């Protein structure tokens, strides 16, 4: 296929939107499609797609921002480890501002904690080598996409005989979260825009239960605005036909079986375990725990901390926002007490958070267009 010109892309987008609108005309209710992944949320807002869609087709955001679903008590633990004089915390930059129950890593850093931003967990190995007298703790958060590199880091540390590198692990899995959403009577969606990057690792087969058990259509989708519109078109088409299939709109990089090498690395180091999701609660087998053979790399097993379970912040509706039950605008704090510079809820902290995207791209504040 030759590349389209910008005019051709714009023309195709217009046709897709028109087709989606035509199919939606006959619907007996407002159609709600959930993008699960935070990168999709940002792509949708950046392209201004929400405003292009007809009135009765709505995009809702799901629990796909790893920072957002990380519960308070994980942050409290990270802060407690950071405050010890014998530790160095390595982390992705997004985590710094995430509020725990009382403070954040950024505040701990300002008070003197040694916290370093890394771009890959593998960078932690050098930090550990350079600081043999310190315990270097990587904050391993994220979905199926970040687990393989966290696992590779542990494997490399083991192979190189590094004994002062640890993980504070809160890795999460997407399919069990989708199941929990569909089992929740408050959640209403007509189809899923399934995550592209996650699917590169997992493949599409892990999403088959959506159709088989819930009669729910899903389309694995890339991050270009046109790919997202095509996915919406395919979801609309399935809804119109009364069908429920898992389709792949990101076939250039996503295969049915995913990436065997990445899955193998993850499986070597991790096993599925129950996990707590902010706003959703505990979901069975929705997280990853380090296997017994790697327990020496698990900081929680070496230095267990007794941190109370996190409590929700008064007024903050992140939990419902993450399940697509309310939009950020319906939260009493949104845009008032809770803004990106003074975030109360995690959805306002991460650049991929739903509230941050709503705020940044002007939903409810913008007077151009409709």
């Amino acid at each position, binding site marked *: 296929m030759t590349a389209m010109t910008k005019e051709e892309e714009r023309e195709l987008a217009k046709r897709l939107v028109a087709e989606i609108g035509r199919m939606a005309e006959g619907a007996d209710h407002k159609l709600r499609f959930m993008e699960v992944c935070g990168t999709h949320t940002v792509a949708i807002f950046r392209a201004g797609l929400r405003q292009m869609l007809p009135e009765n087709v709505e995009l809702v955001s799901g629990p796909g921002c790893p920072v957002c679903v990380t519960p308070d008590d994980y942050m409290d633990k990270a802060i407690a480890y950071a405050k010890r004089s014998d530790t160095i915390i390595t982390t992705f930059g997004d985590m710094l501002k995430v509020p725990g129950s009382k403070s954040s890593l950024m505040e701990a850093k300002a008070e003197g904690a040694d916290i370093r931003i890394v771009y890959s967990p593998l960078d932690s190995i050098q930090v550990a080598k350079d600081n043999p007298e310190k315990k270097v703790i990587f904050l391993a958060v994220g979905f199926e996409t970040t687990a393989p590199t966290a696992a590779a880091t542990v494997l490399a540390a083991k192979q190189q005989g590094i004994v002062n590198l640890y993980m504070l692990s809160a890795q999460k899995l997407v399919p069990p979260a989708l199941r929990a959403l569909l089992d929740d009577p408050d959640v209403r969606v007509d189809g899923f825009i399934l995550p592209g990057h996650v699917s590169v690792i997992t493949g599409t087969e892990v999403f088959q239960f959506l159709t088989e058990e819930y009669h729910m259509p899903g389309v694995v989708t890339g991050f270009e605005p046109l790919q997202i519109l095509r996915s919406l078109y395919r979801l609309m088409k399935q809804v119109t036909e009364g069908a429920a299939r898992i389709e792949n709109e990101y076939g250039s990089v996503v295969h049915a079986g995913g990436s065997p090498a990445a899955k193998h690395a993850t499986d070597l180091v991790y096993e599925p375990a129950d996990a707590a999701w902010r706003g959703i609660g505990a979901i069975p087998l929705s997280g990853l725990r380090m296997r017994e053979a790697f327990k020496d790399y698990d900081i929680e097993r070496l230095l267990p901390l007794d941190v109370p379970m996190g409590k929700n912040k008064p007024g903050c509706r992140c939990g419902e926002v993450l399940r697509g039950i309310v939009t950020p605008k319906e939260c009493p704090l949104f845009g008032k007490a809770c803004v990106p510079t003074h975030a109360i809820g995690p959805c306002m902290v991460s650049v991929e958070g739903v509230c941050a995207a709503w705020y940044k791209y002007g939903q409810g504040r913008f007077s*151009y267009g409709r």
Partner: protein
Amino acid sequence: MADERITMAHGAGGKLSQELMQEVILPEFSNPYLNELHDGATVAMSGKVAFTTDSYVVQPLFFNGGNIGKLAICGTVNDLSMTGAVPRYISVGMILEEGFLIEDLRRIAHTMREMAEEAGVAIVTGDTKVVERGKADGIFINTAGIGDIIPGTSISPHHVKPGMKVLLSGFIGDHAATVLAGRHGLELPDTIKTDCAPLNSLTRAMLEAAPDIAVLRDPTRGGVAAVLNEIAEASHCGVLIDEDALPIREEVRGVCDILGFDPLYLANEGKCIAFVPAEEADEVLAVMRENPYGKDACLIGEVTAEAPGQVGLRTAIGGIRIVDMPLGNLVPRIC
């Protein structure tokens, strides 16, 4: 001699201070005003004067296409240029960290001289201090500058009116991408380097062609997004720009994709945004394209009566969205 370093004695005002001045600074900055070595410079100005100051604390100090000295001269030259002035005289204050390589100082001073020469400004007064190791980051530079306002011009966001066109002098994000890549150890092709440049010849030509240009701004920290938001707010007008019209290099897009940044928010050090009456836009664009620092100039949008105080972006796909004021520090994203 290549590994000589700054010591506390270089800042104590005695013999070593003099040596540093005679051997490193004066050979580069020499001019009749400075050579007086008096407490201050006396200069003649013709009429209305523009006056500005800025401090430079960049890390890394040296990056592809420039160094902190280039920024320090061009930054102040450009600030003066954006007020509609012809930059004339500059002061340079340097704070050096104990242990700083004298050879690095020489390189920085040499670049400052080259830039001052290109911009036609004289470095007429200056100061050097040394602080203990750990109290500064190698070198901090402050420059201040004064210039003559070009008669007949009046730059102010209050002159911005609906219907005016928004012009941009070239590719955005090159400087920030270069520095960020250096800071984060990303490798960029040699074609991506800082755009840092003195823009006084460009703005002067623009103002001579169209004295009623409403606003000139250089989109440094906060990038194009910050400048447009500030002008929208101050003028009580809306600004609508076209995503397709924004000149962004593929490599810069790549750095942004990896680090999770938006090119609209990246700093530039050699670009200019102009708000121009619609009927003069074509002529100003033509003038800009004749200047080496404006050869990729283009029309990126227009001023609207709709949505006062806000900046909108017509996306490539045909949607529309807000371009918000940047919030603060850029942090890398998670996945």
